């Protein structure tokens, strides 16, 4: 029986040693049988069978020692054992595990969210063929630096002569008010020259794109639409190519639909472009060299560097200066990659946020490292026993690292959950107006980032304890174990970690403080008008309203209709509403002032109805606002703002002065009043000189109607919508409130404040936990010492003070380092702040004080416990 089993198991033994192995076991079996001779057969069978189980284990061991699979097998088996052990040791310490996991999940989750955004927006290439060949080409001059728009005639010459571009196209932002289908709609569009889609390397999903033939004057009017518009407005009609698309005054043939993945390059567009038409259809003068309104993009021929392209264009621009000195003197070209132009300065904001979130992750790491250190110290005896039992230092380190990485991977999985939530939220609010936000997803790249962050985190926080706690001292710690001595090197290390943590937290606290301060200041800025209970309605007239008389009739009917609504207290309209993004500049010519031709006088310009200032509750500083008598039949009048008066007539009374908007054909307007300043661009931009003209004298085609209501906003909106429908059903309208415009203008600041606030709150919490954990641990370790001190006559308060002093020393050190780091780092924040210096001492003081208070509480609790140490109890355990 035994021999048959041996033969069976011998097959596991490597062939080279199989014969010797069998010999050895034959001999052993013989010896056994010789001794057992005389026992019953059953007993013998049982003994030999049990004995030969050893042969099986032996055979397996020899098989394992085969050089081929030796390492793989043992490493895998060790890892398996370590994992099992890690799981058990975490299960034994649920509190520790929960805190560590939560910390890690927060840190990894926040970092992964920010990375998704950074990756989607900045790192992912643009969704076009060979995107690094795509560039923006601009006209530039001393007076207008940067990528300024290009004159059509210049563009035509560039396109004809440039050799470094395979494609060069011009685009102009445009809007079309479509009147086909069931509902009029305003569509954000782009007029483009031929080959626009070819340049980007994206083919239409249906039909064709826009060609050079289409841009010739007199060509058949055509449009190409986006996938979104095709779905939304035309019900995804597969036979749409050839359909008529109409506005009030134009009829186009729809020739193509772009695929869903196509996005218009966002470099100059704030809204999604949904329709493209040839430049020939806009009525823009495409032969002028004086008017500059085109954005030019190009694709470099493969292998061409920016440097070569810039030289090519510089030569062409220089030739144009010679040929057309009147229009082109001082004009050069500028070429920048499309990717960097698309992003603008968003990458700066994202880098800042990534830095902040990285600090949070670091704090989380430090905290978990500290937890691990404390645990490793508590496990000192366990580790020492394991060493004595035959575990090597390397094995124990590997075990601790396995524990760390296991923990951080589980934290990472939770963190990815947090990142999913974070990314969804981020996309839906898009708080900083980031372009390409739809590219932000938790994809494979992001997941692998989260994985690497988790592993790196795990190694980072487990490495320190693994090397600090395990080593040659382990035997000694076994002997010292009973005395519970505090290892001075490891406690110094833990205190350093806490100081680092406090330092990092200070930086985030200061950042949050600066943003909060900046936000508060921004919010307390008086916009110059009353934004409450004001409904706004954007309305655009079409070619049915070419005559000023027609425009004024419609608006009179509108104002009368809205004004007679029950809850509406006042109503007016303007061509450019403050904070709504409307902005028109005009040159101004002052009657009694010599203007400098190199630095012309300019002002913001808008046309407003009588009663506009009253309706907006903008006060008049002097003079009067427009009334119903300021119409075409009376003298031309103007209202200016205080900034205008300060700039052009300092110390004089503007009322009665005369201003013209053109130098060549002076039409003089008499100033009748000065309005107080409003923030037109944004709350953080100062008021600039403005002129207001009477709509009754100028007419108006695009307007925002402002109605102040004492009743329900939604009801007022519904009544106004119904009114416009009755007056002219073809006019598209868009409702909003002044409050929303004001809120939007502080949106970004609010977002930074909330985000940094959250970071700082978490950092504060983690730092508090870190200080508390370390101090309690130290106190625990020194219980006996405290007891002895008490027994020798130290007052309870003296003992407490001694412990607290140590904690405060660490805190102070951390605060000092953190403040210096914040001072250095705050420069990055400078451009995001309003009304406060990045070195505002009060913010620094407040931030460090809050942190100091938290740290003090975290020190005081364990210190009090130390003071209560029972002298007799402590001595008895000695």
């Amino acid at each position, binding site marked *: 029986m035994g021999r048959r089993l041996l033969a069976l198991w011998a097959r596991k033994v490597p062939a080279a040693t199989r014969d010797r192995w069998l010999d050895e076991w034959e*001999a*052993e079996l013989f*010896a056994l049988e010789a001794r057992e001779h005389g026992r019953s057969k059953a007993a013998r069978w049982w003994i030999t069978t049990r004995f030969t189980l*050893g042969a*099986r284990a032996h055979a397996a061991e020899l098989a394992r020692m085969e050089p081929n699979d030796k390492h793989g097998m043992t490493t895998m088996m060790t890892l398996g054992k370590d994992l099992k052990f890690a799981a058990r040791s975490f299960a034994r310490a649920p509190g520790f595990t929960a805190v560590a996991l939560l910390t890690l999940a927060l840190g990894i989750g926040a970092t992964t969210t920010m990375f998704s955004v950074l990756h989607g927006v900045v790192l992912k290439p643009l969704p076009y063929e060979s995107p690094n060949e795509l560039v923006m080409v601009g006209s530039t001059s001393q007076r207008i630096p940067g990528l300024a728009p290009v004159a059509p005639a210049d563009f035509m010459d560039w396109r004809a002569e440039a050799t470094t571009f395979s494609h060069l196209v011009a685009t102009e932002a445009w809007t079309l008010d479509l009147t086909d289908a069931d509902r009029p709609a305003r569509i954000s569009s782009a007029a483009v020259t031929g080959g626009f889609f070819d340049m980007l390397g994206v083919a239409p999903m249906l039909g064709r794109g826009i060609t050079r033939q289409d841009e010739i004057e007199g060509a058949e009017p055509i449009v190409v639409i986006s996938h979104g518009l095709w779905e939304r407005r035309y019900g995804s009609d597969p036979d749409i190519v050839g359909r008529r698309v109409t506005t009030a005054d134009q009829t186009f043939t729809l020739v193509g639909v772009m695929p869903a993945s196509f996005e218009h390059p966002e470099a100059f567009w704030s809204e999604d472009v949904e329709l493209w038409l040839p430049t020939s259809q806009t009525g823009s003068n495409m032969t002028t060299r004086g008017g500059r309104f085109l954005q030019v993009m190009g694709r470099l021929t493969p292998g061409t560097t920016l440097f070569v392209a810039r030289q090519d264009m510089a030569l062409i621009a220089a030739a144009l200066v010679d040929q057309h000195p009147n229009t082109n003197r001082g004009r050069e070209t500028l070429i920048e990659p499309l990717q960097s132009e698309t992003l603008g300065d968003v990458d700066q904001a994202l880098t800042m946020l990534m830095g902040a979130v990285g600090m949070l992750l670091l704090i989380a790491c430090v905290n978990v490292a500290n937890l691990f250190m404390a645990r490793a110290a*508590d496990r000192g005896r366990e580790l020492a*026993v394991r060493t*004595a039992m035959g575990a090597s230092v390397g094995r124990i380190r590997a075990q601790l690292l396995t524990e760390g990485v296991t923990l951080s991977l589980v934290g990472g999985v939770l963190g990815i959950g947090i990142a999913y939530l974070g990314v969804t939220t981020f996309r839906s609010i898009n708080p900083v107006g980031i372009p390409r936000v739809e590219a932000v997803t938790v994809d494979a790249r992001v997941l692998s980032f989260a994985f690497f962050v988790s592993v790196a985190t795990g190694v980072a926080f487990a490495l320190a304890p693994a090397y600090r706690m395990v080593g040659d001292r382990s035997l000694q710690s076994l002997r010292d174990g009973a005395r519970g001595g505090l290892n001075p090197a490891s406690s110094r290390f833990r205190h350093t970690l806490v100081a680092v943590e406090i330092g990092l937290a200070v930086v985030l606290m200061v950042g949050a403080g600066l943003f909060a301060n900046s936000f508060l200041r921004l919010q307390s800025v008086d916009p110059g008008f009353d934004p409450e209970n004001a409904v706004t309605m954007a309305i655009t007239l079409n070619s049915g309203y070419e005559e000023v008389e027609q425009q004024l009739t419609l608006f009179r009917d509108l104002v009368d209709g809205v004004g007679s609504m029950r809850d509406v207290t006042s109503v007016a309209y303007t061509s450019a509403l403050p904070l709504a993004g409307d902005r028109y500049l005009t040159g101004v010519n002052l009657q009694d002032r010599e203007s400098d031709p190199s630095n012309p006088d300019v002002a913001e310009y808008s046309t407003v109805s009588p009663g506009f200032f009253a309706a907006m509750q903008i006060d008049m500083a002097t003079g009067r606002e427009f009334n119903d008598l300021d119409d075409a039949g009376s003298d031309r009048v103007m209202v200016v703002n205080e900034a205008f008066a300060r700039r052009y007539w300092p110390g004089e009374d503007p009322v009665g002065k005369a201003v013209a908007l053109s130098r060549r054909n002076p039409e003089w307007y008499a100033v009748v009043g000065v309005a107080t300043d409003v923030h037109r661009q944004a709350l953080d931009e100062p008021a600039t000189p403005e002129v207001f003209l009477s709509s009754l004298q100028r007419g108006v085609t695009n307007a925002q109607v402002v109605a102040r209501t004492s009743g329900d906003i939604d009801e007022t909106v519904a009544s106004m919508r119904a009114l416009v429908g009755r007056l002219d059903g073809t006019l598209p309208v868009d409702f909003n409130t002044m409050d929303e415009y004001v809120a939007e203008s502080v949106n970004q600041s609010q977002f930074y404040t909330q985000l940094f606030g959250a970071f700082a709150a978490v950092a504060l919490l983690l730092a508090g936990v870190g200080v508390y954990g370390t101090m309690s641990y130290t106190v625990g370790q020194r219980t006996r010492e405290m007891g002895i001190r008490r027994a020798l006559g130290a007052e309870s308060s003296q003992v407490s003070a001694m412990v607290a002093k140590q904690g405060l020393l660490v805190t102070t050190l951390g605060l000092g380092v953190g403040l210096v780091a914040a001072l250095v780092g705050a420069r990055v924040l400078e451009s995001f702040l309003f009304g406060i210096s990045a070195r505002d001492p009060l913010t620094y003081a407040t931030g460090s004080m809050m942190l100091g208070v938290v740290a003090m509480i975290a020190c005081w609790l364990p210190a009090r416990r130390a003071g209560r140490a029972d002298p007799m109890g402590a001595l008895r355990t000695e």
Partner: protein
Amino acid sequence: MPRNRALGVATVAILKAILEGHRFGLDIMEQTGLPSGTVYPTLARMEQRAYLESEWEDQGVAKEAGRPARRYYSVTADGARALNEALERLAALAGVQPRIAGDG
């Protein structure tokens, strides 16, 4: 790959038994009281690590005794050194007093 790994209790017992003259498998088992599934794999590992050497009993001697030749193990100098270190460690371990509550 030589690995500097401390010896476990079973290994220590086996090495010690061999040094004391119990030189083949069954004998070691009976001396240490360890099961065959522990003794033989350990012998293989220790030989791999050069803490042990083995030699086959002279065929003539075995024949005379009327049994197959035995495989005898002996401890090398490295093995003896490792054993001494391990014993020292175990002595330290033995000095630890069990405690009721972790108040340290």
